[in-house]
């Protein structure tokens, strides 16, 4: 029973965290596909995440 509780608790926090990390990795992918030709004006603000 204790193991079930532990699994449940860690799953409950792990799932949203995994979802968030996956989304961030997807967002970061263009960083690794970048080329020098990708030049654009830099007026966009992104969410600060201190």
């Amino acid at each position, binding site marked *: 029973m*204790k193991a079930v*509780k*532990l699994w*449940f*608790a*860690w799953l*409950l*926090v792990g799932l*949203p*965290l995994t*979802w*968030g*990390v996956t*989304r*961030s*990795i997807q*967002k*970061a*992918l*263009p*960083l690794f596909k*970048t080329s*020098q030709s*990708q*030049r*654009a004006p*830099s*007026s*966009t*603000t*992104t*969410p*600060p*995440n*201190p």
Partner: protein
Amino acid sequence: MRECEERTVAPQGFPNRSDGSMRTQPPPGRLWIVFGLGNGGSDSLNPRIPRHSTPAVSSFLSPEAVVAPAGFSRWLVPPAAMAVHLCIGEVYGFSVFNEPLTRIVGITAPSAEMDWTIPQVGWIYSIALMMLGLSAAVLGKWVERRGPRCAMLASAGCFCGGLLISALGVHFHQLWLIYLGYGFIGGIGLGLGYIAPVSTLMKWFPDRPGLATGLAIMGFGGGALVGAPLGQELMGYFRSTTSTGVAETFGLMAVAYSLFMGFGAATVRVPAKGWRPEGWEARGLAATEAKFAVGVDRAWTAPQFWLLWAVLALNVTAGIGILGQASLMCQDMFGVSATVGAGFAGLLSIFNMGGRFLWSSFSDKTGRKAIYCVYFLFGAVLYALLPWTQQSGQQALFVAVTAVIISMYGGGFATIPAYLRDIFGTHQVGAIHGRLITAWSLAALVGPQLVNYLSTARKAAGVPKAEAYHPTLYLMAGLLIVGCLCNLLVRPVDTRHHLREGGAA
């Protein structure tokens, strides 16, 4: 010494297993409460509490009800803490609401006469962060006195209540309601929720305090990773021709977060007095720490407190210098697109979160002073390297270096509670931590302004955008060196600050 008196009602010393769980069986007749993970109270375990007082004393919120029952595994406490930190960490993703909040009336585009401006909306985040620091500082002693469950529930009430008030503010287009809701009341929830589980975790993990606080504070870093995309998805779902979807998103997030934070509050427990992991003997610093305690009001007057305050403030100022401007800096320095810049910011968020856990856990091996020397000295070297990576066009190296810098910035956040414990003991470490958080509050407000001002002034002076950040980066390296000096000056607290029997300092 009210806290000490209250602690005496905790059950004394349970035998325990190697995994940190307690061996004695739960008392009969107990009802498993929310999510079936907790126990309604533990006062009957304690012979000092009269039987007839049980119903009154053993309320769900009383500090005694939070004492761990038999069979409780300490590994349930980190997810309970993370559940709260994941929710309140959403504040760092609040900027996804900024732009939609400027077109509440116009819906598709801002209405020049009716809609709020970005600077007006920006105050919501600033007020929330200011209240985080203030509430943590002022209410830290209350959190210690009432225990983590009560504090977590109060945090949930404030944070989720603040979201609901903000939803009303958006619906009726009253900005002051959002300032009051998300900023003022929600900010109090942030402060309470941030410090609530920290001292509890360190009591459960005296053998690995860095790991324990790293896990919780990693949750705060991860809050934005979850909250920002969740906000975007929900706004997309609720968007219509008559609504930007912000009010509905705030409302739904309030409900979801209250359930999640409720789970954390229901699950959290404090160890019985005298409990310790089986096979673990306090040695070295831990043994010294066990012999003394410094109350929050005395810690406040000790130079060590202000040195650590400076350590945190300088670490945060330097880290935020990059994090707050990450996307723009990447675009300006390497001429990449806004999409790539946003990807860079996302990548840094992951390192910020991961660093909180990894570096803080590592500090259990190295000691806190040594790890902060690494953060500051290695960080300063890396900051000084960044202009060179731009000049030589080494974009991949730039990304790698900034990722390491940000991981250490996160590590600095997560290691500070364990550092405080080493210096002041666990007695009121949560309250002391609360007062130290004013450093973060201040640095989070001042740091980005400093970086923004310097880079903007350089650009206005005609310096190429790619080189506009160089002095800022050198300045950050300098701040880290000053932080290192403050860290090196930290010494054990003078014995006159130690609490003695009876509570006198």
